[in-house]
């Protein structure tokens, strides 16, 4: 990696107000100002790494791949949830630009948020292929047509970066809400022709903290860096849950064919 701040490449400097919180020491978070040099290629993540390398090694944040794949470096940049690696510093400003941890999630330290509640939401919806006991894979592989794959393909692009949790006001208002990414993961598997787990996922989705906490703000889809459209997944899941309820209410055997 070339140093993005070598003198010949430098475009200028930007003042960044970075959210700092040291548990046990700080009662409430504080903002610390850093003057960061940037070039054509400097991302917010590069800038944070530069601060950590040259100004303050105690600055804590998550990152890994630097190219929008791992989903680790989500921050709130000037009020908008962004992947640090995908936000160029040259497109920001004029400063000072506020760098905050993802909203609606508890802060562990500085820019690191507590992922535990999300991990619990994600596992609650069983985000894996539940096999059909009557059609085990030992009796031959399950083929899938491109048309069948279309039903869920876009939802597989989720990288669990939690930008949608930061964008969603309902996550902040009702902390037990499953949230956009977890519900989208449920829909992704529900729609998969090889999956047989809809009956197990429905009670989790069709519950107090499931689908119905969503009020269709749509901010999750705007924030998504992967074009997943969680808002669409949730509204379609609401329609499916309502149909299932109606079928259970009106028809014997929940409308299943005998």
């Amino acid at each position, binding site marked *: 990696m070339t140093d993005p701040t070598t003198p010949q490449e430098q475009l200028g400097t930007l003042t960044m107000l970075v959210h700092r919180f040291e548990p046990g020491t700080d009662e409430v978070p504080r903002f610390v100002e850093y003057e960061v040099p940037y070039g054509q290629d400097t991302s917010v993540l590069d800038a944070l790494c530069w601060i950590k390398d040259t100004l303050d090694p105690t600055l804590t944040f998550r990152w890994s791949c630097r190219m929008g794949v791992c989903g680790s470096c989500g921050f709130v940049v000037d009020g908008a949830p962004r992947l640090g690696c995908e936000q160029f510093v040259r497109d920001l400003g004029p400063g000072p630009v506020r760098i905050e941890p993802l909203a609606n999630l508890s802060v562990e330290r500085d820019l690191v948020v507590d992922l535990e509640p999300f991990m619990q939401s994600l596992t609650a919806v069983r985000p894996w292929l539940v096999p059909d006991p009557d059609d085990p894979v030992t009796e031959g592989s399950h083929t899938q047509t*491109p048309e069948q794959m279309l039903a869920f393909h876009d939802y597989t692009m989720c990288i669990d970066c939690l930008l949608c949790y930061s964008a969603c006001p309902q996550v902040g208002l009702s902390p037990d809400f499953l949230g956009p990414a977890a519900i989208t993961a449920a829909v992704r598997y529900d729609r998969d022709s090889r999956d047989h787990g809809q009956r197990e996922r429905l009670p989790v989705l069709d519950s107090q903290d499931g689908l119905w906490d969503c009020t269709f703000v749509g901010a999750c889809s705007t924030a998504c860096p992967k074009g997943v*459209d969680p808002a669409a997944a949730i509204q379609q899941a609401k329609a499916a849950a309502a149909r299932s309820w109606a079928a259970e209410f009106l028809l014997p055997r929940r409308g299943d064919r005998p």
Partner: protein
Amino acid sequence: MRADEVGSVRSDRPDTSTTGHRQPYRRPVARTWFLATHELRVYALREFSSVVVGLFVLNLLIGLVSVHRGVDAWRWWVELQRHPVVVVMTVVALLMAVVHATTWFQATPKIIKVRRGRRYVADVWVVLQHYVLLALFALVVVLWIGVP
């Protein structure tokens, strides 16, 4: 050093045997969260528009009750409709009904996905279909009630 002595040395610290030293800080949600971004303001307007439309429907309900109660009550309600406050409210209700309908029509492609072969029908056709259905519905209502 025995195990209970280790415990006594650390007795002045909180028990972190299961939680570690983590003390996650939960940031409060501002009361005015719905004003924070343009997107949230548009959302808040869409939600608020239904309240105004609801008030208009309440006015209509009062009108229905007045019809039931007789001629005097009906005349009172018709006179009430000429009150400046009610006129302003009705105009605002019309505006808000337009806001509510158009924003919902705009949102429908997220819910209605029509597959044609290996791709979905473009959003614009789903939105357009709602305007066509609304126009048809309005036409039927006008023909049914009759043009004055």
